[in-house]
Structure formats: structure tokens, C-alpha cells
């Protein structure tokens, strides 16, 4: 195609892209610029429209705040653990239940139910379920064992939160893995069977490698979701005794609204954005190199 032929097409693309670009500039660009300004300003609710530039004071305050590092560690641990547990369990269920779901597809709808509940409601639900005096779980533990675990005590609240998150989001991983498992051509399985491969060999050497891209994507999505967790944790334990269950999202929310430290909260969110961008860029870079190597 000559340049003269391309010109009308380029103009058409520009015209079609303009609304999207304008939308992004207004709804993402503007808040991003305001955030950057606030992160290097002395600003409060009274001075939202007249922030005073204060250099990198807010970044220093965040960097030297032990609560920020505590929240970062919580988010990292929580994100990693829940991602691994959800994907491990989801993968197992997808393969194990696959023959059953193939014959009874309505089972998938039931398995997906936890995804339909808002995370804040899940938190609220478990506040009731685990309450020593009204919850069914402690009730049966007291009835049959004469004692109950302290589900939300200082030593166990982290693990309770991990279990609650895993129970809600494993169906998401299950859905992805089931689709990926179903997409494996049946001829491959038949051919390997003809060659005498046992089922666990088929799983390990054929099916899992074919599902690997889906597994990586699921791990990444679930890690990001777990890392930025807010709703169910906030409803269930708040930021926890001494801030022990404060995720980075909770840290930013509390700095902004509870302490009125707007500059500090925004500086923390900018740090989070930069780190997330670097990690995603790095992963993308590694993925594209691997792709190149395979070619």
C-alpha cells in the first residue's frame, strides 16, 4: 500500500481513536497529574485546591514509616500465598472434576457462586460465621471438642484471611484452568495413550506444559488481586491489632482519610505504581525474550 493510499486510513484511525484518547486523558491522565503534584506537596483537606510544594518530604515520610513496610510485607505475603493456593487448588479441581463437569455442565454454575458475592459481603459473612457466640463454626467446635480456635486472634488472623480469600477466588482459577484443559486437542491424549504413556506422564509432560501460559496468567492476576486486597480484610479485621493485617491499600486509605495525611498517602500510591510498573515491565520483557528464543 502506498503512502497516498494509507493517508485516509490513518486519518480514519485518528478520528476513531480520539474519543478513547480524550477519555483516558480526562479520567486517567488528570488524576495522575494531580496525584503527582500532591505527592510532592504539603496538602490537607482544607488546602486541596492550593497545595504547597514541599519537595520529596512525603516520599521520605513513607520510606521511613515502619507501618508502610509492615503493610508491604503483608500484601506481598498475602498476594503470593493466596495466588499459589488458589491456582494449586483450582488446577487440581479443574483436572479432577473435568469428567464430571463435562457430563453435568450445570455444576460449573454452582462452583462459580462464590465469585458472585461482593468481597465486602464475604468479609461480613465470615464475621458472623466465625463469631464465637453466633457463628456455626465455633458452635460445633465447642459442642464436639469443648473449645474453639481463635480464628481472628493475633496468631491466626492472617491465616483465616488467606483461607477466606482462597475460598472465594479459587473458582476463578478453576474456570480458567478448566477452559485451558478442555482446549487441549483430544488427539494428543489419544496419541500418547497409543504410545503407552501413563496418565500421570501425560499430565506432567503434555497437559501441564500446554496449560502453562494459562497458569502463569492466572498466577499473575491472582497475585495482583491479592496484593491490592482491601474489602474483605477491612471488613473482617480492619487493619488488625497494631496494624498487623493492614495491606498496602488499607495503609493508603487510612493515611488519606483517617490521618488526613493526603501527601503521604498519595506518595505511597505513587511508589506502589512505580514498583508495580517495574515488575510488570520486567515480566513482559522476560516473556517477550522467551517468545523470541522459542522462535
Amino acid at each position, binding site marked *: 500500500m502506498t503512502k497516498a493510499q494509507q493517508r485516509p486510513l490513518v486519518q480514519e484511525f485518528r478520528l476513531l481513536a480520539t474519543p478513547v484518547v480524550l477519555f483516558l486523558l480526562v479520567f486517567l491522565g488528570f488524576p495522575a497529574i494531580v496525584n503527582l503534584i500532591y505527592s510532592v506537596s504539603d496538602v490537607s*483537606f482544607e488546602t486541596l485546591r492550593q497545595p504547597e510544594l514541599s519537595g520529596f518530604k512525603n516520599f521520605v515520610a513513607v520510606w521511613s514509616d515502619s507501618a508502610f513496610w509492615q503493610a508491604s510485607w503483608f500484601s506481598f505475603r498475602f498476594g503470593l500465598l493466596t495466588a499459589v493456593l488458589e491456582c494449586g487448588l483450582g488446577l487440581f479441581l479443574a483436572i479432577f472434576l473435568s469428567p464430571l463437569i463435562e457430563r453435568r455442565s450445570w455444576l460449573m454454575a454452582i462452583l462459580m457462586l462464590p465469585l458472585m458475592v461482593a468481597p465486602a459481603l464475604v468479609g461480613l459473612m465470615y464475621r458472623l460465621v466465625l463469631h464465637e457466640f453466633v457463628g456455626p463454626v465455633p458452635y460445633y467446635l465447642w459442642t464436639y471438642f469443648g473449645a474453639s480456635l481463635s480464628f481472628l486472634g493475633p496468631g491466626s488472623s492472617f491465616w483465616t484471611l488467606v483461607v477466606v480469600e482462597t475460598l472465594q477466588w479459587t473458582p476463578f482459577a478453576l474456570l480458567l484452568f478448566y477452559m485451558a484443559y478442555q482446549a487441549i486437542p483430544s488427539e494428543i491424549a489419544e496419541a500418547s495413550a497409543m504410545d503407552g504413556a501413563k496418565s500421570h506422564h501425560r499430565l506432567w509432560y503434555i497437559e501441564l506444559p500446554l496449560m502453562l501460559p494459562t497458569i502463569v496468567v492466572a498466577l499473575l492476576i491472582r497475585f495482583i488481586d491479592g496484593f491490592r486486597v482491601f474489602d474483605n480484610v477491612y471488613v473482617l479485621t480492619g487493619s*488488625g491489632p*497494631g496494624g498487623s493485617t493492614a495491606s498496602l491499600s488499607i495503609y493508603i486509605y487510612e493515611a488519606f*482519610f*483517617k490521618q488526613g495525611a493526603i501527601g503521604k498517602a498519595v506518595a505511597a500510591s505513587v511508589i506502589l505504581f512505580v514498583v508495580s510498573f517495574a515488575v510488570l515491565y520486567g515480566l513482559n520483557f522476560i516473556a517477550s525474550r522467551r517468545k523470541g528464543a522459542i522462535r
Partner: protein
Amino acid sequence: MTLATMKRGALLVASIASLLASPALAEVTVLGWPGGPEEVALRAAADAYNAKSDVADKDKVELLFFNRDGFWDKLQADLAAGSKAFDLNLLATYSIGRYAPFMEPVELSDEAKVVYGDSVLSTMQYEGKQYGVPTDLSLHFMYFRKDLVDALMKDDTAKARYAEISEKHLGKKLEPKAPDEWTWDDYAATALYFTQAVNPDSPTRYGTVLQLKNLLFNIMIWQSVPRAYGANWMDDSGKITVNSEAYRKGLEIYKLLYDNGATPRDSLSYEFAEANAAFASGQVAAMLQWNAAAGDLTSKEKSPAVAEVTDTVAPPAGPEGRFTHIHGLGFGLNKNAENKEGAALFLKWLSSKEAALIYARNNGAPALTPEVVAEVADARPDLVKLGEFAGKYGYVMNGGTSAKALSVYELQAKEFTGYWSGQQSIDDALANTEKGMAELLK
């Protein structure tokens, strides 16, 4: 398009715009506290006001509610953004300083002093100016099981066991007393005695239930303990005084109870609702709780296991006396109100005796003077106790209405729950709190 068509179009647009805009200009919009007795009371007061013949149509009151969760944060954002969506908004003692820059002082009716008294009116004052009408007052009652306490006081064997437990855990032999005579040590000894982990013969699983969630309202409940030992946020010169023996004693009493299992292990995630559920189960002997719980805990329908055996007194005493934290909820004037005149008229009426009695008869919790509360005492006996305790034992910490008061409570909640859960020492908790408060209140 002809000029006439354009004119007709413009006229139509202007008419629609004026139709949409006029209701907002004509009414007084009040942003209230949703989903509780305060909403019921406010609705009744608004209906009574709107029914008055001398209230012009443009000054009729319309109510607006949004969710309780994050209410104060959303209000903060709305006020800071110069919202005109409401003319009057809810206000609390601990947040007056935070919202005062976006509000205007108000003028109350001539009857206000007679109806509420100076101390209650002061819960809505900031820097000497009145910012609101104190419609509801919150303070704390010591809820206790009178059947259990009566039985303890009649039984010599139980008394001996009580003395043994108090000596072991508190270092002194104590005798059971009537709750109205309790010191904080008596409360602790009673709580330990009624704990099965300490006393396997206890009829209840726990002696008390503490609300230890990292939440500012839980610190308001707890701080009456150190206050009874002379604690305050700061002295008259503005020096922060939390790193003191009084605060240490208050923290240690709660730690002692938590560590000995006198309160559920999950108490570190408990707030108002969880504590009420624990007490209502019949497995708890005594609890320090907001007065707002009295209705539910003494209702046979809502708390059948304990309603008939639950009684209330003011919180226990310490060497410096007996204290209960008080704070008021009320209504103040938005600086950006569109109908300021109408809003001022409603506020003036709301602070009158007529309005206070309507509010009281419809589930509200105004702290009224003895002369006024006598008129509703038959229907609302709990208000008599509320007014009495507020007058005798009510206090607000120095700095408790400042712009950063909420942040101070948040800081204390984080540091003190860190100590109670064993994540940091008492020295660190107090030092961190002192440092943080000095920064916030400078």
C-alpha cells in the same frame, strides 16, 4: 433551524433546568446519621417541623442519608469539595475541629440552656463557638449480670475463691462488692472470677468482653479506665501526658484480662456488635459498653438469655474518681449551604424544648436537664440515667475536639492494640503514642 425554533428550544431547556433546580433551592436538606434510632428520631422531628403552619414551603425540611460505613470520611470529602448537596450536616464532638473550617457557627433558641445545660451544649462547641445542636449523647454504662453478682455476694465459699483469685492476679485480697461501688480492680477481680479459664466453676465462659479491635471508638470506651487514674491527653500547657502511670495502669488492666482469658481470644477483632452478641449469649458476666446497647440488652425479644437479669451502673471508679467518656452527635450548618436562612430557622427550633421532647419520645438520646427529662421519664427511663451520668461523670479529654482528635484516637488504637496483642511492649506503645500525638497536636 429558524430563530423562533431556537427560541422555543432555549425556553424549553431553561424551563427544564429551572424545574430541576427549584426543589433544591426551596428546601432545607439535612444530612443525617442513617439506620439507627437517630434516624427514627430525626424523621419524627422533621415531620413535626414540616407540619407547623408558620414554616414556609421554601423552608421545609428534607432528609438525606448515606451509608454509615465511612460516613465521616465521605462527609470530609464532601465538605472539602464545597458540596451544596446539604444545608445541615451531622456533627460529632470528636470531629468538630476537623469540620469547623467548612461550617459556620450557629445560633440556638433561648431555651437551649434550660433544655440541655452548659456541659451538654459544650459537646458541640469549638474554640468558644457553638457549631451545632446536641441531639444525641453517647456515654458508657457498666452492664452486669445482677443474678450472678447477687449469688456471689451471698456465698462465703465463692467469696473465699474470689479473694484467692484477686490475690493471685492483682496482688491483693478483695471482697466482692455491688457494681455501683466497684473500682477498676474490683471489676478486674470480678471478671477473672467469672472466667472458666481462671475459675473452672464459673457459670459463665468469660468474666467480661473487651472491644479490642483497632478502631477509634474502642479507645473511647477504654480511656475511662486511665481517666479514673488521672489520665489526660495533655496538660494545660499543651504538653502531651499519655506516657504516664495512669495510662500504664489502664493498659495493664486490659492486658491482664486478655492474657488470662477473661475475654474471648477473638476480642482483638471485636467492636460494638460482637461484644453485644457475646453478652447477650449469657456467657459473659459484665461489660463496659455504649449506652446505645441498653435497649437491645434489656429487650426480652432481642436478648432473651439476659434481658431480665441485666442491670447498668456508671463505669467503675479509680483514685481520681468515676468517669465516663461523653460525646454528642448533633447538627450544624454547612458553610456552602444554599438555604442558610431556612437552615438556621430549623436549627433554632431543633434546640427548643418542643423539638427535644419529640426527639426523645421517638428513640433519640438527647441528654436533657432533670426538669425537662422528667416530662419523658415514663416513656424513656434510660434518658434519666443518661442525663445523670453525663452531668456527674462525663468528661472530654484535653484536645478531644481538636482538628486532629480522630487521628489521635486512630493512633492510640493502633499502638495500644499492638500492646494488647503482644506485638510490642507497653513502653514502646506509650512512647510511640506520645511521639505521634506531639506531631498531631502541635
